[in-house]
């Protein structure tokens, strides 16, 4: 009997990594526009104009891949039950070394919240990005507001991403494997997603 069970199929993984790569391209090419403190990041792209071009190409890729990623997992992310509420109340047990048994489905409540935040943020970034694509095409008030929202959600998204990357890698060993080649150990599944594990085992 195998030690592993399948968690994400190849399509899930590819869509996720398209989102991830375009996110980091957007981050690096956008920093120089966010504030002149970070203007030096444009050198990664040859010139500021090329950086802006990369930003404009990566934007729609990120937007549509995020939408697809959300839709593929929406069934698992948009409802919260009593266990999820307990998970949120206890911060997922992350504040203590004590083992706390909070049965979770395929995604824990934190992942669900992050998934929902990410799609809202992607929609806001997409809509405001479209407005500031050509900063003189719309009214000044609207463009100024879009610049502010784009910056605000970038900030929130970046903080969320730091947390996401930490928890999905060294914070929870064994998690990254699920997104790299699709499978996790049964031990991981029992510990992190016991309700999901039971469903898979029972078929």
């Amino acid at each position: 009997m195998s030690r592993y069970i399948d968690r994400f199929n190849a399509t899930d993984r590819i869509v996720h990594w398209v989102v991830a790569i375009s996110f980091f391209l957007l981050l690096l090419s956008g920093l120089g526009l966010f504030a002149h403190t970070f203007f030096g990041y444009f050198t990664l792209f040859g010139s500021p104009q090329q950086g802006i071009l990369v930003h404009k190409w990566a934007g729609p890729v990120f937007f549509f891949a995020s939408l697809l990623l959300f839709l593929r997992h929406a069934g698992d992310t948009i409802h919260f039950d009593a266990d999820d509420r307990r998970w949120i109340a206890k911060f997922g047990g992350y504040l203590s070394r004590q083992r706390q048994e909070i049965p979770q489905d395929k995604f824990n409540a934190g992942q669900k919240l992050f998934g929902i935040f990410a799609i809202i943020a992607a929609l806001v970034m997409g809509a405001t990005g479209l407005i500031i694509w050509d900063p003189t095409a719309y009214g000044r008030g609207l463009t100024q507001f879009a610049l502010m929202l784009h910056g605000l959600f970038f900030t929130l998204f970046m903080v969320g991403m730091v947390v996401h990357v930490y928890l999905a890698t060294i914070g929870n060993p064994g998690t990254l494997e699920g997104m790299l080649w699709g499978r996790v150990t049964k031990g991981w599944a029992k510990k992190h997603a016991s309700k999901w594990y039971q469903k898979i085992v029972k078929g």
Partner: protein
Amino acid sequence: MKRKAFLIDTTLCTACRSCQVACKQWNKLDAEASVNSGSYENPPDLTPQLYNKIHFIEQQEEGEDLRWLFINRRCMHCADAGCVKVCPSAGALYHTKEGLVAYNQEKCIECHYCVNGCPFDVPRYDEKKKVTKCHACSDRIQNGLLPACVKACPTQTLKFGDRDELIAAARGAGKKLYGEQDLGGLGVLYVLDDQPGTYQLPKNPAIPASIFFWKDVVKPLGILGFWGAIGVAALHYVTVGPKQVEDSDDLENKGGE
């Protein structure tokens, strides 16, 4: 160096437009075809080829004579300049040592953000997609000359010089100035014959609130948030530690966090 400024006494302006023409000549700006819009004002707005212009305010109430007010419109050379604040490319838009806002087109990255950062809707983009606007003839000033518009003004509507001296002189003559304190003090001070709104000037010019929020709130919070999140993650790792999958997880059928 002491801060320089323009003082524009609109009550002396005869709308001869010498300033408009002199600016075009010195800065080698092309003429543009325009259409008659039923006003003597021409062209109707600043363009990439027009750094300063006379705005005509033509008002007539029934039975009364036409009221004609003129104002020379241009970059206001704010001390706290919205365009400089939003410009991501250091040195593309900058304050000269005289306190005037000039630009270097070679550093302009064509993001157009300055258009939205300016409270007076001044910066324009030329056909090369680079920022253009009145730069107070910084090339002339640095060689001890007056800006071309001031040099050409026959009525002393336009004055240029030491900002404090201009203010003191205007005060001494009993004139009220627009822009003395706003945005750190404007580099273009007006003597107006009516309310600022009549001249399409904001009563209390300020950097747009959303631009202020972006640059002065979101940006520092973003830097703090990024390093804060990394710090919290590192702290979590060395205090609580990661959630290891333990041997027992492989045996028992319970748990899950």
